């Protein structure tokens, strides 16, 4: 057994433990030196990324891996906490760590002027660790614990600009909504535990029978996680909190939101995987019911998100509403793939949805970074107050154009590749849905063209004569995201073949997820 094997074997635990360790270390280190603190945070993320890379190469080549906490082997009743890492988890943690790295690079100069930064870096590392934990865990209660950590930490980070009353308000709204949601998840976990005396996802998935209680559990889990992912009409916390959090943090909160989306996928595809493909009620298969409910909510999300984004005056809030619409696209894709489970275009829809998840994180993240750069340069939030910034902020302008084209799904950027797959597959389920999605995408382009005109073009206002270009680390962060967006846009197949297709296969193949645990006893 070489050292590499040993590292790969313990990688799932270390991926979560290293950021946690760094977070615990952070208050001590930041008493010593400020620069050391920033370097420590960045190097912890790099180390985590290294372990993720190790784990990814192994899992993608050899199939799911288990990590049992506190014992070497699985024992018959599943008493211990498991991490089960399949290609889907790999896909999610890769996105999370990329977003985290970019956010930390960006915060280097963005947060420089603020105080309380030791707490800031602690909380950021905790948020990353909890997001990674949510995506790796194979235990429902453990999932709940990580969800609560991410909820508390996000709330504290949203309130970072404590001198603005709005930030506190947004944080309060966020924590009320998400703690109530989390409590309902705990109730659902209690119901599962009462029936099957198990907390392990694979064990539960094997024995789940779709009784009345299981229906209640399904509704609770899907609604709460959908709320945390930002489905309309439960999205209202999202513009508030995205719009008021520091933009660097927003990037990581997008990661946490996507982890909730991953929770929806895990619940429907894995936990209820057996039920989905077998159960029938009144000649209507369960998957059609679940799929169409998700599609309905998704279409409302797309329409409301886009229409509301059009009239926003606050730039970050506008982007947040666009993010709601993007979440709608993802739910549209997975709803289609659930409703049409088994047909060939269901796979395409699922792949499109997963690719769109990656693209959404990058595009919306890029736009938030640009909005943060504008805020950094002008200290203004409202679109009405800014104008003609392209003269002084050339690079930011270029990055904004890339983000604009990507989020609106214009070729050849990444947004187009995923939206193309979504349109084509949704069209085969129902053409009207696809047409609505395309129209809303066009409206999205119109919205961001308006933003582009208002912020970058137009006359140069007297107050902005000596506005400076954003600092170098912020440009570097934006450049990284923009480069990724162009790369995925030009070579979508590389990403689809290496990451998205295995992830989609792993999601659909719930039997493998179960047998990895059950067969290992």
């Amino acid at each position: 057994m070489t050292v590499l094997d040993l590292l790969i074997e313990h990688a799932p635990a270390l991926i979560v433990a290293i950021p946690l360790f760094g977070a615990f270390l952070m208050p001590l280190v930041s008493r010593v030196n400020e620069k050391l603190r920033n370097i420590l945070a960045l190097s912890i993320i790099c180390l985590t990324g290294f372990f993720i890379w190790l784990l990814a190469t192994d899992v993608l080549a050899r199939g799911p891996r288990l990590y049992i906490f506190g014992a070497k082997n699985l024992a018959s009743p599943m008493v211990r906490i498991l991490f089960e890492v399949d290609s889907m988890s790999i896909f999610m943690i890769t996105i999370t760590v990329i977003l985290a790295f970019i956010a930390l690079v960006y915060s280097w100069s963005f947060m420089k002027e603020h105080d309380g930064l030791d707490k800031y870096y602690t909380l950021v590392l905790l948020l990353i660790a909890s997001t990674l934990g949510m995506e790796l865990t194979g235990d429902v209660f453990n999932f709940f614990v990580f969800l609560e950590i991410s909820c508390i930490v996000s709330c504290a980070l949203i309130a970072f600009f404590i001198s603005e009353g709005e930030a506190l308000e947004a944080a309060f709204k966020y924590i009320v909504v998400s703690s109530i949601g989390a409590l309902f998840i705990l109730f659902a976990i209690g119901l599962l535990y009462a029936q099957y005396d198990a907390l392990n996802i694979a064990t539960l998935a094997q024995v789940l029978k779709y009784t009345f209680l299981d229906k209640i559990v399904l509704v609770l889990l899907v609604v709460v996680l959908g709320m945390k992912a930002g489905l309309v009409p439960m999205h209202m916390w999202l513009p508030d909190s995205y719009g008021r959090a520091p933009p660097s943090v927003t990037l990581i909160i997008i990661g946490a939101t996507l982890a909730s989306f991953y929770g929806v996928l895990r619940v429907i595809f894995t936990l209820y995987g057996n039920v989905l493909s077998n159960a029938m009620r009144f000649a209507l298969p369960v998957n059609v019911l679940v799929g169409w409910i998700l599609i309905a909510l998704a279409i409302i999300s797309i329409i409301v998100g886009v229409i509301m984004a059009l009239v926003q005056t606050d730039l970050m809030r506008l982007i947040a509403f666009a993010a709601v619409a993007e979440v709608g696209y993802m739910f549209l894709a997975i709803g289609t793939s659930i409703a049409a489970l088994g047909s060939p275009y269901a796979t395409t829809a699922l792949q499109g949805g997963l690719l769109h998840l990656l693209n959404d994180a990058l595009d919306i993240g890029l736009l938030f970074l640009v909005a943060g750069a504008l805020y950094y340069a002008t200290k203004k939030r409202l679109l009405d107050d800014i104008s003609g910034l392209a003269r002084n902020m050339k690079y930011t302008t270029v990055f904004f154009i890339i983000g604009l084209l990507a989020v609106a799904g214009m070729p050849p950027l990444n947004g187009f590749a995923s939206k193309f797959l979504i349109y084509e597959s949704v069209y085969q389920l129902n053409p009207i849905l696809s047409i609505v999605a395309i129209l809303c995408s066009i409206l999205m382009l119109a919205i961001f063209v308006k933003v582009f005109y208002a912020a970058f073009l137009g006359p140069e206002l007297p107050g902005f004569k000596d506005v400076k270009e954003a600092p170098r680390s912020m440009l570097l962060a934006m450049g990284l995201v923009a480069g990724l967006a162009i790369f995925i846009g030009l070579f979508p197949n590389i990403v689809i073949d290496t990451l998205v297709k295995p992830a989609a296969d792993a999601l659909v193949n719930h039997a493998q997820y179960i047998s990895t645990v059950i067969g290992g006893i």
Partner: protein
Amino acid sequence: MNGMSKIVKTTVSILFPFTMIFGLYVIAHGHLTPGGGFQGGAIVASGCAMLVIAYGSEWVFERIKTKRLAAFESIGGLGFIAVALLGLVFSTVFFGNFLAGSNLLFGTTPATGSTLADMNTGGVLPLMNFAVGIKVIAGLFVIVLVMAYASSQKEWNT
């Protein structure tokens, strides 16, 4: 808040050590009797909260540095995760109980069935209890102290 009357202060002064002792007892015997790091930590922290109420938050805030308390909390957390990582080193799994059954510190295996309390059992559990205890004492105390101090001040910031 300037603290309460002399009667309250005296009563709290007498009760405070007992609360401490009881809390530390609960932490130390977490693997034998009901309780553990969290419960014992909460007891000690409520003793400290009693102090805050009786003497006023400013009195306590001047004498105890919140930064130092936060550092203590970090140390507790680091100790907990370090014990878990030691499990990785000595028993090849994260959170492995490498001391149980080793006949070293806390390493005795108790007889099956009803037994008398033996402190020297439990493996790494007592260590984790202590780490969590430190963490909870410092954490809850600093939360209570900061909130009480902030609510007693007219102008906290900006």
